[in-house]
Structures are given as C-alpha cells and as structure tokens.
C-alpha cells in the first residue's frame, strides 16, 4: 500500500509539476489578461479620439485642477527655497551674540532685553581670543541712511559697519569689482565703502561697476570713496539685499558713535562644531559679565543662528500654504466630478457596445478595466498638460514677483499621479455600472 503510494507520487511528481507550472502561468496570464488590458487601452484611446469635444472638455476640467495645484505648490516651493537660501546665505555655520534676540514677541520681553548690558567690541575681542572652536569672529552694526551722489539720492540704504574684513565672508558676500579695504584702512577710520549693486543702479544710472570704483558717495553728509562693488544677492519679500553699503567699523563708530549695542558674528568651519563653539562663547560671555548682569534667570545675552527666521517663516506661512493648496485642490475635485459625469454619459452611450462585448465573453472585470483605463488615460493626459500649464503659470507669477523658480520633478510626478488617482476614483462608479449591466438588456438598447 505504502509502496504503491510512493510509486504513484514518484511517477506523478514530474508531470504534476509541469502541469502545475503550466496551469499557474495560464491562470496568472488569464487573470491579468494582458491582451484584454491592451485592448482596453486601445478602445479607450479610440473612444477618446472619436469624441474629441467631449475629451477636450474633460481635459480642460483636469488641466485646470492640476495646473492650479502645481502652480501653487511650485510657487510655495520657490518661496520656501528662496527664504531658506536667503537666511542661510551666512550658512548654518554662523551664529550671533547680541544684546537682544532678533525676534521679540512682547513688550515685556523688549523691556527685559533692554535692561541687558550692551555687547561691545571688547566682548568680540575676548571671544576671538578665548573661543578655540570659533573660526571667524566679526562685528557688525547697521543703520539706515540716505546715500547721495551729485544730485542723486538713494534712501533707506543699509549702512553696515563691519570689522574685520572677514565679515564679508561671514555675511556670505563676494566682491564683483574692486577690492575690500586692507587691515590698516579698516582701523584708520577713513571714509571708504563697498557698495551693493542697487547703489550703482540708483545713484550712477546703472553705470558699469568698474567705472564707479574710486568715485564718491555721500553718507551722513561725508564723502565716502567706493573701493569695491558687491555681487548681487537679490531680494526677499520685495526687500532688496543689495541696497547696502559696507564701511569699516572704525568709521561707523566715528560717524554714528557707539550709540547702540553691536552684534558679534561667529563662524565655525562646519555645522557640527556649532554647539561646541556656542558653549565656549557662553562661558566666555558669562565670565565677562561676572554675575553683575544677572537678573532673574537671564544670562544677559542672546546666542542665535539664522534658523530662528526660518522657524518663524515656517510657522507664519504653514496655515496660508495649507489653505492655498486646499483651494487649488477643490478645482481638482471639480475636475474629478467632470470626469465622472462624462464617463457616465459615455457608459450610457455605449450600452450596446458593452452588451456585445459581454455576449462574446467579456467578464465584469474586463468591462470595468476598460472604462477605468479610459478614465485614467484622459486624466493622466490632462494631468501631464496640467503640470506643464502649472509650471508655466508659476513661471509667469514668479517673474512678476521676482524670485527664481524651482521646478521639481517631484511636483510633476505627483501632478500626473494625483490626476490619475482622480481618474480611478471618479471612473470607478461609472465603470462599475458598466460592468454590472445585464448583457440582455444592454444588447436590446439602441
């Protein structure tokens, strides 16, 4: 008995395996029905082509939706990117020591911070001397001033007194033409300056940078000689960052006095060293304050990186972004409803065809796939056109606002993907209705 079984199994094993492999292949083949899928695709294309006006209307619905979403997302991404690069032009390797933090949230805070001792040039020198992890240390103070040349006036220019000359590098600014002052010039208190490109545009009628070197501008009534011109950085939120004139800090003190606390800039070689450097600076500053300053739990100075601006920007804009994308998404929803509407019409119109197909062997899922593919084909094409249109729109808007556009492959893929998803969702019900049609009823219809 057992022998018989063994023999059977042994004899049967090879052919059985073959049989199984064959039947599995056949089953999976017939399950996917690649030929039927391809047929469904061709039928979908044929039907879309045969009803050009209907297809065009459907396309418009989807294109508008996708274009709106893509344009909004692209503009937001461009804006985010612009903000991020702007605030990190000093890089994530720079932090500041200041009397007041850059963002003050309340009047109480303002009063509290104002009681602090000023940060001085001596503090900066102590940090430079004692902080081993600090790579570059510089000092900067700003004031807004009208700059003149001949009878030309340029108002609201940022006059930035800096020392030493490495502050240009900490600020992430490069010289386009001319030079930065020498160390000797820097401490001499001479009236010399390096100007941003906006100053040229506004005071020299856009004359080329090399013709401006050596000329004079008047700042606070004093003649300043232009040593160099900065490379442009562009603007952020409509405020130009090139409307600036750098002068030596010694000169700044001479002209404006030490009327306000200064800001010390510290740069470390790599972002990883930021924390170590901050700890060392904290120690140095606490020692220098020596407990005299200590009121409540305040240490009497603020250490900040530029991330505070990014955080603030992120918090301030996240809701606006959501609402904007939401509004754009509504138009995509409307597009989806258009597709569903058209698909329902298409199913009704082609009841007879569905009946014929079912009579000769189309299963429910074959009919379902055919109409789903039709819906997805039209929405995917609409999505692709929408992505291009959306980028175009974003490009126009970006050009109007004046910031560089960030075209992302991610947004393009998402645009086509989401619109295809819309196609599946809105095509599902019409396709299901088509699949469920009774073949006899369907054949009878005209």
């Amino acid at each position: 008995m057992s022998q018989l079984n063994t023999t059977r199994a042994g004899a049967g094993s090879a052919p059985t395996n073959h049989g199984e492999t064959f039947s599995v292949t056949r089953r999976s083949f017939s399950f996917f029905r690649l030929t039927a899928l391809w047929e469904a695709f061709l039928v979908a294309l044929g039907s879309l082509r045969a009803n050009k006006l209907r297809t065009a209307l459907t396309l418009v619905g989807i294109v508008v939706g996708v274009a709106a979403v893509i344009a909004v997302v692209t503009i937001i991404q461009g804006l985010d990117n612009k903000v991020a690069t702007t605030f990190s032009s000093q890089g994530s390797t720079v932090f500041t020591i200041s009397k007041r933090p850059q963002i003050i949230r309340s009047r109480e805070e303002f009063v509290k911070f104002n009681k602090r001792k000023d940060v001085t040039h001596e503090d900066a020198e102590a940090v430079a001397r004692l902080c081993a992890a600090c790579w570059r240390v510089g000092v900067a103070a700003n004031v807004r001033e009208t700059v003149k040349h001949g009878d030309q006036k340029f108002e609201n220019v940022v006059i930035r007194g800096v020392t030493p000359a490495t502050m240009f590098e900490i600020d992430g600014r490069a010289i386009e033409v001319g030079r930065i002052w020498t160390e000797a010039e820097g401490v001499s208190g001479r009236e010399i300056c390096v100007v941003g490109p906006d100053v040229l545009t506004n005071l020299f009628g856009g004359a080329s940078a090399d013709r401006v070197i050596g000329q004079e501008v008047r700042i606070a009534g004093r003649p300043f000689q232009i040593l160099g011109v900065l490379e442009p950085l562009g603007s952020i939120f409509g405020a130009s960052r090139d409307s600036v004139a750098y002068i030596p800090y010694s000169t700044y003190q001479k002209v404006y006095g030490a009327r306000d606390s200064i800001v010390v800039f510290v740069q470390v070689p790599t972002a990883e060293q930021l924390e170590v450097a901050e700890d060392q600076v904290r120690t140095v500053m606490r020692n220098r304050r020596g407990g005299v300053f200590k009121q409540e739990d305040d240490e009497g100075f603020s250490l900040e990186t530029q991330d505070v601006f990014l955080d603030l920007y992120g918090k301030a804009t996240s809701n606006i972004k959501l609402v904007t994308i939401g509004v754009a998404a509504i138009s995509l929803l409307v597009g989806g409803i258009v597709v569903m509407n058209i698909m329902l019409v298409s199913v009704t119109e082609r009841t007879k065809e569905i009946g014929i197909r079912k009579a000769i062997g189309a299963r429910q899922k074959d009919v379902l796939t055919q109409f789903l593919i039709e819906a997805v084909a039209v929405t995917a094409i609409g999505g692709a056109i929408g992505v291009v249109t959306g980028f175009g729109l974003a490009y126009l808007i970006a050009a109007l606002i004046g910031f560089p556009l960030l075209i992302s492959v991610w947004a393009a893929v998402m645009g086509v993907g989401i619109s295809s998803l819309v196609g599946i969702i809105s095509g599902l019900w019409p396709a299901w209705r088509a699949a469920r049609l009774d073949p006899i009823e369907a054949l009878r219809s005209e």
Partner: protein
Amino acid sequence: MSDVTLVSPSAPSVLTTEPHVPQPHDASALISMREIWKTYQMGSEQVHALHGVSFDIHRGEYIAIIGPSGSGKSTLMNLIGCLDTPSNGEYWLNSKNVSEMDDDELARIRNQEVGFVFQTFNLLARATALHNVELPLIYGGIGSAKRHEMAQQALAAVDLSDRVTHRPNELSGGQRQRVAIARALVNHPSILLADEPTGALDSHTSMEIMDLFERLHGEGNTIIVVTHEHDIAKRAHRVISIRDGLIENDEKIR
C-alpha cells in the same frame, strides 16, 4: 395475457398527477435541458416565460427553434446562450452544469462554447472586420499573432478574405452578417446560436446566409437558429416549436 403485458412500466408516471421527477440529464448530449423554468417578476405578478422545458441536443445537429413573439423563444435562446440563468431546472452544456454558474463563469462559457449571430449583426462600428472577429479571442486571452491568424482563417471561411480591413459601414448587410458569423466561429465554439439571422436581410441575401449555415453544418458545427419564419426553420434538420413557454412540438424533419 397480452393485455397485461401491454402496460408499460413508464405508463403510470405519464398519467400520474404526482410531482414530476426530472429525468437525469443525458451525459452524451451537447445540450441537456431539464425542467427549465424562467419566471419574471412584473410588479406584483409573476410571469412564467418558460414552464418546465426539457430537451436534448446532440453534437452536429442543425436545429430551428420556432415560435410566435411572446412564446418564450427569446428567453430560451438567452438561456441556451448563457446570457441568462434559469429560475429553476438544470442546463448542462458540454457536460457542465451551466445553471449554477456565476457571472464570470458564464462569460467564460459564452466566450468558449457559444458563438452568437444576431439579427442586427451587433458588430463594433468603429472596428475593422478583422478586429471584430478577433474580439472573442482577446477576451479568451489569446496572443496577438495567433489571434490574427485565427481571425483571418475565420474570415476566409465566410469568403471575406478581401474585406478584412473594412469597417461595418463599408460592408453590405450580407457581408456584415458573414463577419458576425466569422466572429461567432473564431473560437471554435460548441454551438452556433443564431437569433433571427436573416431578419434584417433581403430574401436573396437571406438564402446566401442560410446556404452558409448549411455548409457550416456540413463541416460538423452544431447550429441552433431561433426564428419565427417557417422558410428559415425548414432549412434545419429538427424543429422545436415553442408556444406559451412550453415545447409544443419537437420533430426531426430531415
């Protein structure tokens, strides 16, 4: 003595009013219908389109199902063609119990076992003759090269090799019906099921189509023609007459 022996064992069952015990289906038959009922719900009323119909059809037969409109012959045709399932009774097609199949299994049977020919041809208007004929093969999951070849052969069998790329609106009525016949035959089905195949054709073309059926029958196909025209029915070898949902007459005429 002879009187006693004349009483056949089956006689009481014919005469009895006891509930009818269905005969088991004939396993050798291609089609075996047993006590087929079809009941429709019309509002609050139940309408019986078929009242327990039983018959067998063997491979290679050429049958006409005839009856006036409303007799139930369309219902019967839909059942034979597996477009519908009976409310009651058993339908065995090619040794498979079709009466218990679900929609997808029925679609498979329609694809593999049944070739439909309709009165109004029912071709896809936008597709070429070749593509129309290929359609059942597509749903049968047959690859394009094989499909092409089979469709070409089927069109050649109905003498339409020179009309392969024509669309239905570029063909005459007779040619359209021949494309439909090619489509019905392309999967080598067990039965060719024609519903008023000449109903939309003039008498000359009708005769051509009936000649074609005769030829196909001669080549071994099983053919069932549903019609109300006696001229058409007369071409068959066996005629089943339906009236009021019952078989009125079932006779071999050839």
